[in-house]
């Protein structure tokens, strides 16, 4: 620990001496991090939309025509007790007719033509908008259908699961692209720092000859790789932030990545940089 100052000084000096090589390594990381960041942004935004929809998620439970008020009340009580249900609103046949007219004003005469109100009474059951998978919601809906007096239960299942699937695809593709680009970035760091190490192999030999441990020789290079990773990551974040701002000026609803994503991304590229240079130094340590 007493050598931390020495390692940092050496690392910064090396970055300065590295010139165009260091710049190339930083840019390679920036490029990889930017692509990964675009995927992460897409994933995060889809995820956010999904969760917002989920938080407003409700199921319409239609009652059978013959159900009387007492039975309807009992169904309501039953629905209220189901897991994940936060609120239950009763919609009488009259209110349903009003809603229908409100939704489709041009077809209001349709109801009049029928004479009798054909719409059933229903309950609008609001579900807790948490992490349950849509399969669980489907199970819940199936359960609602079995309640005595219930005719049918309907919710926006397809749309929701499509959204979730899209989120998953973006997540998986993004993760795969992230891994590939991360590995590529590490390889670039290995080769660029490898060149820098090669240029300084005499220094390494001398340090080893005067009794430096492998760790002592390696440390400044690892710090250098770490800093390259951080610089590259920060540049990518700046570019990504600029991109998000740009889209927002065109009224595209895009959110910038939250702190956890930013932190995790920076950590990955910093560690990747450190790891890359550690590998690069390795073969020059055998003195």
């Amino acid at each position, binding site marked *: 620990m*007493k*050598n931390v100052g*020495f390692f940092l000084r050496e690392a910064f000096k090396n970055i300065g*001496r590295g010139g165009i090589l260091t710049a190339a390594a930083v840019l390679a990381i920036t490029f990889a991090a930017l692509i990964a960041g675009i995927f992460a942004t897409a994933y995060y935004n889809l995820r956010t939309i999904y969760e917002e929809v989920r938080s407003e998620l409700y199921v319409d439970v239609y009652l059978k025509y013959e159900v009387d008020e007492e039975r309807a009340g009992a169904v309501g009580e039953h629905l209220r007790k189901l897991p994940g249900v936060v609120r239950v609103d009763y919609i009488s046949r009259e209110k349903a007719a009003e809603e229908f007219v409100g939704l489709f004003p041009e077809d209001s005469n349709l109801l009049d033509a029928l004479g009798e109100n054909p719409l059933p009474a229903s309950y609008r059951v609001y579900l807790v908008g948490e992490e349950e998978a849509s399969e669980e919601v489907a199970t819940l809906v199936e359960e609602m259908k079995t309640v005595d007096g219930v005719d049918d239960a309907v919710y926006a299942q397809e749309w929701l699961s499509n959204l979730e699937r899209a989120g998953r695809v973006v997540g998986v593709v993004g993760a795969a692209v992230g891994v590939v680009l991360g590995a590529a970035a590490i390889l670039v760091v290995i080769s660029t720092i490898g060149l820098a190490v090669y240029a300084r192999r*005499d*220094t390494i*030999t*001398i*340090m*080893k*000859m*005067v*009794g*430096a*441990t*492998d760790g*002592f020789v390696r440390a400044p290079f690892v710090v250098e790789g770490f800093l390259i990773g951080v610089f590259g990551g920060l540049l990518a974040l700046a570019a990504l932030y600029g991109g998000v701002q740009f889209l927002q000026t065109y009224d595209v609803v895009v959110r910038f990545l939250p702190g956890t994503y930013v932190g995790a991304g920076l950590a990955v590229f910093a560690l990747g940089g450190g790891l890359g240079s550690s590998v690069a130094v390795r073969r020059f340590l055998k*003195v």
Partner: protein
Amino acid sequence: MAAPMIKMLNVTKVFENGVVALDDVSVEIGKGELAFLTGPSGAGKSTFLKLITVEEKPTDGLVEVAGHDVGALRRRDIPYLRRRIGVVFQDFRLLSERTVLENVMLPLTILGLTPSEQRRRALQVLTVVGLAQRKDAKPLELSGGEQQRVAIARAIALDPAILLADEPTGNLDPDITWHVMKLFRVINARGTAVIIATHDYDVVKRMDARIIKILDGKVHRETAE
């Protein structure tokens, strides 16, 4: 003779390409001894020194340095042994982008001394070699003899038990060679075992020290001090 600082017993070194660098060599060098390692180029002098610095390990036989069996030494322990061995090279091997003082401070930095202590000790050894006033110069601003003295200062900065010099005067003028040799004498007088590999017989003759002559990987002849 005092307890040997370096002990080689039936040491053979064969390189991967089949070249036999040393063949059944047995030598003991005592604490505080001064010895010359002579012989033509390619005789095995450098390999002899590399076995001591653990850059190479013996193919067969025993090499003991400061009581440590080099063949059995773990890789992670090698740096600690090297801190007891100063090495001087023909081509000086100074770091050109660092000042004289920084070059001499390097082993002290590795040892983990405080910056002020590093500076103090580096200046001390630079004074011993007579170059304290050039501490802020870069190596390439110095003459060859001065650069070699800086290298010697670096080699003795940790007050080593052993000082190895591989053709230390190969690049130097005769006058300066003599000056450097006197420096080795001074260092030896402080109790450091000094081994100088050279094929410069004029120097060897004038120094009146033990001579280990190596020829074709074998100890050809030994002359006692």
